[in-house]
């Protein structure tokens, strides 16, 4: 660059001659940056139209969503507090960790409104970070799918092997902490059947969990994290495990437990026998049992409807406001409004 004036004249013979090419820039609309283009300009007419249009779309959707949410009947019962003995946290933990104490707990639920089948049964955990970075990593998908890779426990720390070194299948913290409370429902004397088949994703059953992979060395360690698995059932049929292993996105989450495939009438009383095994007491987690119908928009949640109504309303307001601005302070706009 600073081939200063010193290296001049014949000294600059090594410098390539200026590009004196006869091929001068070819004219094309692209190279001259003159491609035909649409040049949108935010005219008042456009602005008002856009806002109005959004309002027109959003408000009805919001109303429909609210109505759908209202139609959903949901029974939520928090049982972790009633199904335990002891006052302090330590006492509770000691109680639940003691293999000899009775974990059975009977509660009753009243149906507030008619519930049409299918009624979904969920368990809901609060304050359980299934999305923790240490937790979500602690699994090995190859091991779950392929029986040949049963010994592959990489990435499963700190639940790779038993103390004597035999590989755990399924390994990792996720599987280890498998939820193990059970519920049985009855109305009067009549047992309510809970269908637990098909609660997991078909794609998971078919492709993620092998049908010839059986649990081994699972929950054999000194520290039990949760449920044990029947070693004679292949993983692809262990739907509770499959559901559990699809880790939740948020710290408060529900997981499908089963479906009740019969209608429940208003004011019917459901008796639930809970086996309260799962230890959430050590980290003050809550456990809830949820029975819910569903709508076209999913479960009970007013947020979507309210959000849509708010946005729609705001847009209507803005449309009006802009109309006022344009009328009150007209600027010479070069385009027709």
């Amino acid at each position, binding site marked *: 660059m600073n081939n200063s004036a010193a*290296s*001049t004249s014949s*000294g600059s013979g090594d410098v390539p001659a200026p590009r004196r090419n006869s091929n001068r820039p070819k004219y094309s609309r692209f190279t001259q940056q003159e491609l035909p283009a649409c*040049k949108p300009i935010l005219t008042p007419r456009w602005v008002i139209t856009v806002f109005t249009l959004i309002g027109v779309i959003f408000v009805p959707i919001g109303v429909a969503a609210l109505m759908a949410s209202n139609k959903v009947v949901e029974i939520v019962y928090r049982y972790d507090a009633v199904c335990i003995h002891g006052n302090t946290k330590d006492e509770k933990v000691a109680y639940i960790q003691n293999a000899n104490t009775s974990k059975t707990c009977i509660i009753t639920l009243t149906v507030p409104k008619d519930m049409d089948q299918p009624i979904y049964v969920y368990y*809901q955990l609060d304050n359980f970070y299934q999305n923790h970075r240490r937790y979500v990593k602690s699994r090995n998908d190859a091991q779950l799918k392929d029986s040949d890779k049963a010994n592959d426990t990489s990435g499963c720390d700190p639940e790779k092997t038993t103390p004597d070194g035999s590989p755990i299948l399924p390994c990792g*913290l996720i599987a280890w902490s498998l939820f193990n409370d059970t519920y049985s429902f009855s109305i009067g004397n009549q047992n309510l059947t809970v269908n637990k088949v098909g609660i997991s994703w078909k794609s998971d059953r078919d492709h993620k969990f092998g049908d010839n992979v059986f649990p081994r060395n699972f929950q054999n360690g000194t520290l039990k994290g949760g449920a044990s698995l029947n070693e004679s059932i292949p993983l692809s049929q262990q739907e509770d495990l499959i559901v559990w292993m699809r880790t939740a996105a948020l710290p408060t989450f529900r997981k499908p437990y089963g479906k009740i495939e019969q209608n429940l009438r208003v004011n019917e009383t459901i008796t639930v026998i809970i086996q309260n095994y799962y230890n959430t007491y050590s980290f003050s987690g809550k456990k809830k049992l949820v029975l819910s119908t569903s709508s076209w928009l999913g479960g009970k949640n007013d947020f979507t409807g309210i959000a849509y109504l708010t946005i729609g309303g705001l847009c209507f307001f803005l449309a009006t406001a802009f109309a006022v601005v344009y009328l009150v302070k007209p600027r010479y706009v070069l385009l027709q409004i």
Partner: protein
Amino acid sequence: MASHSVNPPEDSAAAEAAPNTVPPRRGSLSFRSRAERSSSETLSVEIMERSRSRPMASYASKRSDSDKLGSQREIDDDEARFVYINDPERSNLAARLPNNAIKTTKYTILTFLPRNLFEQFHRVAYIYFLILAGLNQVPQLGVFSPAASILPLAFVLGVTAVKDGYEDWRRSRSDRNENNRVALVLVPGDREFRPTPWKYVRVGEVIKVAADESIPCDMVLLATSDPAGVAYVQTINLDGESNLKTRYAKQEMQSTAPEALSGLIRCEKPNRNIYGFLASVNVDFPTGTAATKPVSLGQSNIILRGCELKNTSWVVGVAVYTGQDTKVMLNSSGAPSKRSRLESQMNREVILLAATLFALCSIVAILAGVWLVDHRHELDTLPYYRKQDLSEPQVGKYNYYGIGAETVFAFLMSVILFQVMIPIALYISMELVRLGQAFFMIQDKNMFDEATKTRFQCRALNINEDLGQIKYVFSDKTGTLTENKMEFRCASVRGVDYSHGEEESLFSSVSSGETRKPKTSVKIDPELMDAIKGGQGIEKANLARDFFLALATCNTVVPILVETPDPSVKLIDYQGESPDEQALVYAAAAYGFMLVERTSGHIVVDVLGERQRFNVLGLHEFDSDRKRMSVVIGFPDKTIKLFVKGADNSMFGVIRKNIDLDIIRETETNLHAYSSMGLRTLVIGMREFSIDVFEEWHSAYEKASQSLIGRAKLLRAVAANVERDLNILGASGIEDKLQQGVPEAIESLRQAGIKVWVLTGDKQETAISIGFSCKLLTREMTQIVINSNSKEACRKSLQDAASTARRLKAAPDSESTFSGTGSMQTPLALIIDGTSLVHILDTELEDELFEVATVCDVVLCCRVAPMQKAGIVTLIKNRTDDMTLAIGDGANDVSMIQMADVGIGISGQEGRQAVMASDFAMGQFRFLVPLLLVHGHWNYQRMAYMIMYNFYRNSVFVFLLFCVLYSVIYTALPTIIVGVLDKDVSRKTLLKYPKLYRAGQNNERYNLKLFVLTMMDSLWQSLTVFYIPYLAYRRSTIDGPSLGDLLILAVVLVVNIHLAMDVFQWNWITHASLWGCIVATIICVIIIDCIWMFPGYWAIFHIMGTRLFWACLFGILVASMVPRFTTKALTEYLMPSDVQLARELEKSEETNLSNSSEIPLSTFSQL
């Protein structure tokens, strides 16, 4: 000597437009006998000698311009360099002088890596990336692939290093070539010239240079092939002037054979002034006679490295300055690496973002620490944490190092997670965008020079966007504004205007079978030709002949014969220091008065086909007081005439007014017409000497010529005495041909708010007349002229100028508040010369100059040396944040080009130095308009938007805490496309309203306010993207990967819709890239979710099957865009920028929807 004048507007143009014709240099070609001249040189030494003993004599400082530079001070022994002719050992004994090798490289093999890296790490962001790359190597943080994290940085650094290395290698290669060129050096013992590489040449050695060779170092002439000691050099690489300069060997040394010569030269220490040299020589005569009196040496006795010897078969000289000491090397400043303004501004935001990042990470770390402390007893068994590792018989710890360490790791991990806050992808995108922009600039057919078939060249890739923010343009004159071709255009003979050059001249001089033709032909006016051919007795014809005879004789031009393929035809090339004189002589030749030969005593002119010999009885050189020159010619018929030519204001004072009043009036009218056409005018007069007058003059002239003291002053008095009662012959108009479109270009630039300064090596008068012809100066302007030759005088001039400026600016200012525009003000022009600048630059007077100069609308600097050009650029650069651009074509512009923020070289004409040093090169000055107003505007607009958008996009992501992949692949392409293709306003509109350029000058598209607003917008958008799904999916069975898919799609849609809202023009490429990017993202997500190994297997299909997903997506899009859309609509309506108005105008013109012709201009904001 201070002459500060504020000319009234009326006479300023006419007064200043007339150029002088003979350069005011001591020792310029004079055709007295050689011996006489050299004695005059000796005389001037005596003057110097005398003046040493007492305060500087007034006449000593009254010498011509070039002397003022040099002879201001005496050389003390401390400040002197002693050069012993032909004795390099002794010359180099006292001080270690450099050898003649030059080095322009930046690096050596050893220093390349550290120094290059050091320079590259001036980018704050690179340090950040380096820290990150280091962090990625910490194993505890469990980064996926530590090695891969270094790759992007290594790639960016590597590419730049290779580029820098290649450039430096090319420099070193050219240095090597230069250093190994061979010169003939006299070996002291051998008395014989031996070829020696340039790099071994030492001070004191005697060197022989042959015709057309380059001069290896600065050397004092000892002897030349011409018996009178004349040598011609071309100095184009030094000062950009292409004509030949005359240099002399001192008679004292010329008379001795160089091999036998010895002596001592005392010269000043190396300095940058190429127009001055101060030295004296004591020659030892071989006969052993005692050393003579010191002979003074000046500017005309030295030939400088970089020049070429012309029309002289050889010269012998002694090296006085070598290698890095040579004036040309001292005048070449190193190329500073340039960084675009936008990028340096970006550094500020990078630091800001880094602080935000630090804050975010600290919050994360503190919260993590608090949580850990809270749960410290449960960590062992906590299902989702469990630090106990039971795999071994001994209970171990899984990835846990204590609360303190975990907190630190949480901090570091979040740094890695949030690292895209400062996007390395941005730096890569910027490079790509610049490449694209460079492509479009090169391809622009409006910047293709048809004449030289040269394209626009982008030599620097990293300052494209600076073109959109220029506030000062520093332009060279010769070769940049003008074509450097003087053309004779008009003649006014006896008050009759002849300005219709139509016919080809047919004249050629034939003698002894040899035809001689002028090299350049001039179109002639048939009417004038007829007038010349008129009968002998007619007065009109006689006067016309005298007019052309005056043109052919009253000058210092040397005719040089050039061979042609046809042996019987030779071309006459008129060489001289003044291009005006050349043009006049060519014109005279075209009308049949061909100067064929010139010797010291006579001139041979081919008068209408007949050779005549005229005796030159006396020549009065041009000086800046008289502003004219004259020559006394003895005609073959024994009549004696005095021909005078000079600037009109000086000539009309000495013209006989009592007769020919009509003619004088007519001539004045013609002159006015010529100068308003931008022509350089000269008035020609004649006086016929009677014998008495001649005798009187002759004795006075002889006496003055032989006078020992004050010869120049005496000669001037003689001239002034005789140059009176002249008959007016006529006037001439010469066009310094401007390049095509220069006045229009300057006007456009001025409207765009760009200040155009012209820095030229030319004389003041020339500079001013060019200023007028290129519409830089106008008649309404008040000129402030600063010509001072001492610091005190400069200070006073500047103070006067400042007060004048204040007065003129202040008065109309109060009125302008009512009129609303500043156009009522008197425009000011500052004209300053190089001598004054010597005293101003690098002293405390710089501030005052800066104040005056910035008030003035136009600044013209004349007679400036290359380094002063750079000095003026620095003056502005150091005191304002405004962007500067320098444009020039010659080697003398190199330092200025390198100093300015943007350097532009004019290619295709002469040397390649300017182009080599430039950032951009183009064929014509007028291309500056499309370059700045169109491409600069677009580049700036695009780059500013892209940077802002990148920050926005990445911060959306960071605020969202998301997966790393997306920022690189999913959303980079549309930005780059928009960064290359989008344009706010069309070329046509930009050229029509240069005012739109001010967007860049005012940093409208990239500033802190905009940055903060954008960041707030991005915060809002990330909040909506996160919280809408969060609240909608609260207490649901949603799994991590599904929610992740929703968020990715939402983010990609949001950032692309955001981009779509900001796109000005939608062409198919924009459509394809934007929508294509969204589709590509969806496809990517789908592909990833089809791999069973990943936890997200099939998640996208599940979630897309739910209506809540679509409801969320749609809701996010609208909610995140509402604030931006509202603000945009409001500002565009209520506070539209000029660009916005122009867009509306453009659109309305296209659609012809409304009566657009009424308002447009007045709606532009008043700036």
